[in-house]
């Protein structure tokens, strides 16, 4: 339809060029997805969307469908996979590897299982929801099952161990380097 809006600054070309409604799949990496998902989850609506990327492999594969339910920081546990904003306009579904109380608020450290470093620690306000299930090839994996919760907890511990590994070996390495003849091998 070619039309102009009376008393509006919407250009005629904008109205006539677009179909009135188009069915699209919103990419989970887009800023629109970040805003819409935050808006819906805060309104108490769960989300179903297709994951992109491999940062949570092997648990979440590219193309898996995730079911995210609204969650408060208080109810989230270490090992849970959460949907949160790590920077403006970007959301990730990563695992909680650390949970702290910082100035009367919850601080969450999230990390992709396949990543060597965590994302920045986020305040509770940037948490949108918790991944409750994922679908792959028609099968649904319920992440609230005890075995999945245990595996999640172990994955979080592994990430934390990897995170602290550098610091853990720094002191012994320093002492060994002081021994004559070993410093050249440990440089």
């Amino acid at each position: 339809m070619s039309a102009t809006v009376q008393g509006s600054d919407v250009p005629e070309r904008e109205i006539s060029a677009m179909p009135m409604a188009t069915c699209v799949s919103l990419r989970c990496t887009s800023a629109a997805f970040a805003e819409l998902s935050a808006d819906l989850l805060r309104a108490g609506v769960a989300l179903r969307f297709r994951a992109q990327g491999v940062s949570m492999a092997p648990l979440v594969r590219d193309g898996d469908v995730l079911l995210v339910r609204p969650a408060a920081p208080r109810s989230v546990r270490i090992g849970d996979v959460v949907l949160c904003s790590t920077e403006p306009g970007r959301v990730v579904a990563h695992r909680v590897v650390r949970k702290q109380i910082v100035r009367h608020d919850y601080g969450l450290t999230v990390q992709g299982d396949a990543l060597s470093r965590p994302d920045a620690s986020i305040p509770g306000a940037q948490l949108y929801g918790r991944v409750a299930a994922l679908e792959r090839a028609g099968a649904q994996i319920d992440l609230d099952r005890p075995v999945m919760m245990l595996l999640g907890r172990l994955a979080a511990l592994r990430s934390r161990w990897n995170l602290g590994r550098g610091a853990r070996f720094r002191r012994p390495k320093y002492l060994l380097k002081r021994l004559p003849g070993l410093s050249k091998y440990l440089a």
Partner: protein
Amino acid sequence: MDQPEARFERNPEFIFRRIVDELVLVPVRQDVADMDCIYTMNPLGAFIWEKLDGRPTLQELEAAIGQAYEVDPRVAAADLFRFVEELESAGAVRRV
């Protein structure tokens, strides 16, 4: 769609949002929003969606478009009917 007096209402299972310059319609079934098939609308589509809040007839919608837009009434009617038909087949609106 050949019934100008047919009256329509929005399906409450669809949520309308203005997000980052986009006007989107999200289907929500059993409290789960399906982000795999959302509808983006142009400003005219959004205008019609907002008017659907008052359970208008197609004739009333046509008149509202005529008041707000400078457009050939026959073209407006044809596009409006097609749009409402699309919304009905998607389940976003239903006849009252």
